[in-house]
């Protein structure tokens, strides 16, 4: 009895650090606002006067406030005329290591380095990640640089959480492939055909290992292990993908034919730009998603006969028949918090936004591309409560992010903290 009392007293003492509403183990949270965008599994839907119920870090339900009953004991936060949106997802991020040049790996050891890991350099809550949160970016694929054809393994992270273990959405988040554009500078310089051969060669050896592991597991036998090829078993088992820095017609074509058709691996265009859009229909047909940026337009050039037009890259991918188009920053090439600006300039230069594809390109499209749509990418019951409060259309640079929850934790509050972006 005394012991029980003592325990109760102890619990009362620790109430200061008890989980807050919406957090895991805490009471429920009900968020009200004027409008919610990016709702439903497809991220198409808009709900006016919504209420989002959050419990244990997950979205419990979402609907018009007049239809959804707020259970007793839930903390109610009314954001009045603000909007709600799902947290943004950037599949091309180099800033989780923080500022000062000590961040991202870009070790040009060999021309292909599938065994290197970007996760080794993550610094949680570094200033760049905090500003990313203030820009509404809640999930990123943190990847190695493109000094070589395979820079290493990326990791999918939540930007605003305090510990690395909490941040990880999936590891490996991807194998980073850079088919051309920078690796030419490796050592004394290499050409396109040698890079393609070497990349193919690495892939074939890796995939052989991956298949051996998968088959051994199927037979229930001990699987061979290899540090060098460790990323290939999850690739072969479709548990992760290849994110490809690919641009220009011939390079995108190499991505599609070599990686997708010959090897059958899940791959997507990341850092898509520079006249790759001519292959949009082919990429779409092969199930290769297009995550575009940091460049947003193709200028008049002899490479692509644009007849003097300034072409929006997203608009061209769309016009040529691609249906799954997302946006990236290549941060710090563009600041991480400016991801939404990429969608805005995409729309400016002709990307059709009639179905809210600008918002989808920041949320559900990249989430689906990276295979994490069961957790992030839209406001739908069962997903992580990664929630933005904005002053208006989240794509408009004039709209500020007022508050951010990640997994039910209020990680940013522009009023209480200083506005970071």
């Amino acid at each position, binding site marked *: 009895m005394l012991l029980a009392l003592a325990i109760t007293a102890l619990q009362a003492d620790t109430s200061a650090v008890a989980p807050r509403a919406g957090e895991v183990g805490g009471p429920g949270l009900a968020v009200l606002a*004027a409008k919610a965008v990016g709702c439903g599994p497809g991220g198409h839907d808009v709900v006016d006067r919504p209420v989002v119920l959050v419990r244990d870090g997950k979205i419990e339900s979402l609907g018009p406030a007049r239809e959804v009953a707020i259970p007793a004991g839930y903390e109610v936060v009314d954001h*009045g*005329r*603000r909007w709600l949106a799902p947290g943004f997802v950037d599949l091309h991020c180099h800033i989780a290591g923080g*500022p000062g040049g000590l961040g991202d790996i870009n070790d040009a050891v060999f021309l292909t380095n599938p065994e290197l890991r970007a996760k080794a350099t993550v610094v949680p809550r570094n200033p760049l990640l905090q500003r990313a949160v203030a820009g509404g970016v809640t999930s990123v694929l943190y990847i190695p640089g493109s000094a070589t054809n395979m820079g290493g393994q990326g990791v999918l992270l939540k930007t605003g959480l305090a510990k690395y273990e909490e941040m990880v959405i999936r590891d490996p988040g991807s194998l980073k492939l850079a088919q051309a554009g920078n690796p030419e500078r490796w050592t004394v310089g290499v050409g396109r055909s040698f890079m393609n051969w070497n990349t193919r060669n690495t892939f074939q050896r890796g995939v052989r290992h991956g298949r051996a592991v998968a088959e051994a597991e199927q037979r229930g036998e001990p699987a061979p292990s290899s540090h060098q090829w460790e990323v290939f078993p999850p690739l072969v088992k479709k548990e992760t993908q290849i994110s490809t820095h690919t641009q220009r017609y011939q390079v995108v074509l190499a991505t599609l034919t070599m990686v997708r058709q010959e090897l059958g691996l899940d791959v997507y265009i990341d850092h898509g*730009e*520079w006249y790759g859009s001519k292959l949009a229909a082919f990429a779409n047909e092969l199930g290769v998603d297009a995550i575009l940026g*940091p*460049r*947003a*337009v*193709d*200028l*008049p050039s002899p490479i692509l006969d644009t*007849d*003097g*037009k*300034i*072409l*929006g*890259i997203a*608009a061209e991918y769309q016009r040529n028949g691609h249906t799954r188009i997302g946006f990236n920053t290549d941060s710090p*090439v*563009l*600041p991480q918090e*400016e991801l939404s*600006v990429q969608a*805005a*300039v995409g*729309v*400016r*230069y*002709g990307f059709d*936004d009639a179905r809210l594809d600008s918002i989808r390109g920041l949320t559900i499209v990249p989430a689906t591309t990276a295979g994490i749509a069961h957790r992030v990418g839209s406001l739908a019951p069962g997903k992580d409560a990664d929630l933005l409060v904005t*002053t*208006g*259309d989240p*794509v*408009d*640079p*004039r*709209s*500020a992010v007022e508050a951010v929850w990640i997994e039910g934790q209020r990680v940013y509050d522009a009023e209480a903290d*200083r*506005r*970071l*972006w």
Partner: protein
Amino acid sequence: MIRLQSLTRLALAAAFAALPLRAQEGGQEGSTGGGEEAAQAPTDDSDARWFAIQGGDIYTGTGAVLRGATLLAKNGRIHAIGYDLDVPPEAKTLDARGYRLYPGLVAISSQGLLGNASGDFRDTIDPFHFRMVLGLATGITTTGVGSSVVKLKRFSVKDAVINERVFSTFAWSNNNPRGKSELRDKFAAAARYQREYREWQRKVKEQKDLPEPSKRGIDNNVLAVLNGDTTAKFSTNDRDELLGVARLAQEYGFRPVVEGCQEGWTIADELGRAGVRAVVTPRARRTKDERQVFDGGSSIENAAILHRAGVPVAITPATEGVDLGGLVGRDIMHLPLEPGFAVRGGLPERAALESITLQPARYLGVSHRVGSLEVGKDCDVIVTDGDVLHYKTFVQWAVVDGKVVYDKEKELFFAHIRPRPEAEAPRKIDAGETPPKPEAEDGEGEGEKKDDAGGDERRGDDEPK
């Protein structure tokens, strides 16, 4: 006799949506029976060049909005803004129904929009250069270049330079303490000379042989600033340096233009009191000096905080040239996008529009001619398909001195992006394109677009006739 309608009158006209505005030319107001409100074409200038932009929503840039109104220009100057104007039959017209009119944008500084011009702009402007087209496509009709102010007068270089020797540029850097003290000495000497000279001017009327005070050792640039002939320009982001500039300005009574100003938000009141005028890039980054006890570093709220403290704010993008690298949104071609980031940080929409129109026009000493749509000013107008600060908005026509010098449909670069609908279908701008403003700011009408789709009226030619 009121020669020009005041801003207040313009705003009133918007509010009551009735009275047309026009230049009232003394002694020439013979009515021809068009009613009191009709602007009359004076009979004695039959060779006047008339141009009318009809039916658009006119955002004057001074806070007023006249929906579905007409802007009439005579000989390149705005002659009247209002409703039911008597447009002379020979006037060229532009049908702007469903579109918005804004003052042509003023770039406080830019590079390359005049072609490969340098040095003497009168001789080196290239009025056919493609970057001038891109500048007009951005909405820029006037730009500061170095210490000159030039209009983007396409096809012509005549009278393109509208102001020169605007700025005297000085450095004020913590890294050069000697430079700071030397500049302070120069101001002290010039101020002393100014006093002596004035005294001499007063006394010499009686003492004819009194020698004029020696100008020896007096810095002409500094003296020009003290005489009000030029504007002192500094470029600094550092808090201490900004304070130094502010104190210098207060001590010697001039209003400097300060480029950068990234830490201005930490000392906005001091800058406001000193009369500092800021040129900011809302997205520019500066890391806080962690050894510094004060607030520091850049803030997205910088422009808003400066504005609240009474510091005028002009906005310039991170890159003042045309960036053709494909990384878009940060160069001079996206001038109207940049103030959006100041709005994000709390700057009212109206101040955001002024930051790329009226404020830079004032800094450049040309606000009597450009920067807002007011009777008597130059007819430099952009006609847009939406809110000029919205990311989706394109300039459809740019007008300089009452002439259409840019038509999106007829140029190479952007004609394919959301082409204008055919003339038969009067266009309705989707009000949903503009994000709703949670709080009404400034009372500037950000409301519904007028639905002008009804009626039997057919749109005329898009062409200016």
